[in-house]
């Protein structure tokens, strides 16, 4: 770390925000991305010290922590930071943070709120249309020069009139439903609880939802309860004409079973932005034209990153000025998040 410059003595008065690993925006734009004149960053990843030693050294200075999906905030880390009052995450998901431990310690958590919901929903719909209408596969076909020589391209499947089942009708699920309605899709959903004012059909469990729809779109959080929620049973219930889209978290689907079903034709196709062991992707999927994949980039647009920058800086500045957080996460009614990085 650079030695402190005498001309920047005011800098040393600024409160510290700890960063364990560089978030994606730092990698893409440099480490000035979440800059503020009102606080400074303490970058654990730039230190040669092992993390627990580093945390011991700086324990008294750290009141806030900036986390991203690839940098889990475990109970162990939290226990080494007695003055920690806030965890801000750059991701939509919260599964990498031990929220129970935060609640126990009275540590506030600030999330992404709904800034990513539109992009996530757009990805989900884009993947669904791509899988049904074979957009990526046909684009490959044309760009390989095959259209002239090989005649009529295989037909896709109509989206209009399809029954779409949304798993998790939160902010993202609602945006997906809103977008699919004018396409003539009938929307149904499964959620932890039925939503009273919503015009869509509720199914009490995912297998029943799958059995009654042509496309499943996964929009829920990864928790201990939703791990492998989409099991072999759900996939078989979805059936040979069924499509699954996952823009949530890889471990919500039993990936081995999913691959098996796709290879055997037990389901029609899949659109996947997330996987169980990113960035590893099952190689069997590469041979399949009815699978469309993306590298966990459902929220990776310039616009979302600009919004994220304002939100992260806004939340941290609010915290250090004792003002209300912009996007606090309610820690009362929590499903169990064990803080595993999956």
């Amino acid at each position, binding site marked *: 770390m650079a030695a402190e410059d005498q001309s920047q003595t005011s800098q040393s008065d600024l409160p510290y925000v700890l960063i364990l690993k560089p978030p994606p925006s730092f990698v*893409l734009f440099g480490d000035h991305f979440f800059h503020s004149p009102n606080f400074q960053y303490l970058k654990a990843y730039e230190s040669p010290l092992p993390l627990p030693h580093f945390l011991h050294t700086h324990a008294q200075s750290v009141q806030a922590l900036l986390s991203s999906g690839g940098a889990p905030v475990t109970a162990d880390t939290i226990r080494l930071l007695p003055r920690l009052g806030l965890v801000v995450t750059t991701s939509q998901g919260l599964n990498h943070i031990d929220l129970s431990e935060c609640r126990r310690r009275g540590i506030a958590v600030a999330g992404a709120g709904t800034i990513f919901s*539109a*992009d996530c929903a757009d990805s989900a719909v*884009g993947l669904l*249309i791509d899988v049904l209408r074979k957009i990526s596969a*046909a684009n490959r076909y044309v760009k390989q*020069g095959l259209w002239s020589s090989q005649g009529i391209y295989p037909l896709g499947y*109509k989206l209009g009139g399809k029954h779409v089942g949304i798993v998790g009708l939160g902010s993202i699920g609602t945006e997906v439903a809103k977008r699919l309605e*004018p396409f003539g899709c009938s929307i149904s959903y499964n959620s932890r609880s039925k939503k009273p004012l919503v015009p869509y059909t509720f199914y009490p469990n995912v297998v029943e939802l799958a059995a009654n729809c042509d496309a499943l779109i996964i929009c829920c959080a990864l928790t201990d309860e939703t791990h492998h929620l989409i099991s072999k049973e759900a996939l078989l219930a979805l059936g040979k004409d069924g499509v699954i889209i996952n823009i949530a978290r890889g471990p919500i689907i039993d990936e081995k079973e999913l691959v098996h079903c796709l290879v055997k034709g037990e389901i029609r196709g899949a659109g996947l932005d997330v996987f169980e062991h990113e960035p590893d992707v099952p190689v069997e999927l590469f041979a399949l034209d009815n699978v*469309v994949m993306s590298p966990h980039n459902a929220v990776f647009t310039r616009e979302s990153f600009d919004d994220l920058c304002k939100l992260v800086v806004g939340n941290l500045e609010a915290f250090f000025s004792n003002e209300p957080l912009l996007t606090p996460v309610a820690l009362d009614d929590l499903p169990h998040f064990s803080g595993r990085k999956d």
Partner: protein
Amino acid sequence: MESIGVLMACPMNPYLEQELHKRFTLHRFWKVPDKSTFLTTHCNSIRAVVGNASAGADAQLIEALPKLEIVASFSVGLDKIDLAKCKEKGIRVTNTPDVLTEDVADLAIGLMLAVLRKLCESDRYVRSGKWKKGNYMLTTKFTGKRVGIIGLGRIGMAIAKRAEAFSCPISYHSRTEKTETKYKYYPSVVELAANCDILVVACSLTEETRHIVNRKVIDALGAKGVLINIGRGPHVDEPELVSALVERRIGGAGLDVFEHEPEVPEELFGLDNVVLLPHVGSGTVETRKAMADLVLGNLEAHFLNKPLLTPVV
């Protein structure tokens, strides 16, 4: 009706072909080695032509078939049919409107998402193994982008309705302003292009709309603008579009149609902001069956002296 000769212009749908063969004496024009001899031999038995977006009934074919009574197109587009000649000779013309509106509109939105969010390129990135080395680049958000539609007919309206659900402000250009809609009207395509982020071609191809997207329009659309064509290839000045894309003077394109299908300019193959499809706008199992049934229904109605289902002429 087995003695009625029907000429099918090109391969288009196995089910349709099968049904035509069952009900009529079907002649497959693409299998005929010597077309002019064939026409001379069979001209008195052919009473119907079934065409599509690739091949229909031009003046020459119509003149060669003196007993032609009806041209049934397996498409909604009529640009391959000499409508004036048909009118002149009292030949009926039918097409397949409405049944394909949703599929074409769905594909337009699918192309917008694919181009802006680089879905095809993201898929390619994962398949190449590059994700292990790092994240893919940032893409462009679709929600909220201004969508400009050329032609606010059935397909244009269906595109507008879908794009609205993504909070996209809608504007359009049409031959006449549609006062019953709330969308913003622009009296020229150049003005429309200058005021939108995504320009979609959704009008029919006529003499007037050939090259409606020309160099001026492409320049007005600009370096951040995206062109989506689900109409007909000749709507766009293709060489101008290709050079604009290669020179990065426009932001990207999603194209389902081309001037000389199935030929596609190879300069486009390597561009990551371009998505190319082999004219699949209505290409779903469900819709092609509905289109085929409409063609068959129109032919049956005609030969039974009943009202045509979807007459154009």
